[in-house]
């Protein structure tokens, strides 16, 4: 069920990207609604996916312009994802490059 939910989510994103910037607000609203439906499943089973999905929803729910708050949220998410990845990579014997 989890796999199906996430596959559905990503298929929605796939369908959405070509429409971005076109102004199909009703389509975007429908997709955001569908994404929000999937969030509880992700929350219960794969929380690593939750923050990126929430950020995508926030982006798509906006007016069409990227806001400073969205960029700030994205950068905070980056930091979390990067830190988790580097911790896993280091544990597996792939030390973080000094200059990264």
């Amino acid at each position, binding site marked *: 069920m*989890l*796999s199906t939910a*996430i*596959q559905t989510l*990503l*298929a929605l*994103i*796939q*369908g*959405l*990207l070509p429409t*971005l*910037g076109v102004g199909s607000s009703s389509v975007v609203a429908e997709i955001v609604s569908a994404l929000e439906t999937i969030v509880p499943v992700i929350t219960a*089973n*794969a929380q*690593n*996916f939750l*923050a*990126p*999905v929430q*950020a*995508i929803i926030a*982006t*798509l729910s*906006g*007016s*069409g*312009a*990227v*806001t*400073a708050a*969205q*960029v700030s949220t*994205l*950068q905070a*998410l*980056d930091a979390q*994802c*990067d830190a*988790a*990845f580097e911790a*896993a*990579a280091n*544990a*597996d014997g*792939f030390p973080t*490059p000094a200059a*990264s």
Partner: protein
Amino acid sequence: MNMRKLILAAFVSAALAGCTSVENAVSVATSAAVPATTAMVAANSFDAIESVATGYLQLPLCVTGGALTCRTQSASKAIVPAIRSGRAARNAIEGLLCSGSPCSPNQTIPAASYNTLAAAITSLDAVYAQYNIASVTK
């Protein structure tokens, strides 16, 4: 333990599906610029892919008679640099976002920058395919 394996299997299975979907979605832009919202979604999608890679690296190492869901060192060797390279592309895009204060409406970013991230995502997909990561989840 079985539940944990199930979740990990689903997680890595989603990784392959995710990379494939995102690769298809984040296609090469042919115009000179792309909307900032598109770049935002791509950057967030990369973060999701990075989370998937993290999940893979947290799997136990494959050994004879070991866990059914496991990682190989060769796959890890390919995934780690690909993620780090993609991260650089993502950061470069973010450096172009919302440089004004407040952000200008209908902001765009150069397609070349966007395409670098798209290429990084495609590269990650190739890494997953090359090492047939999906097969370890079945």
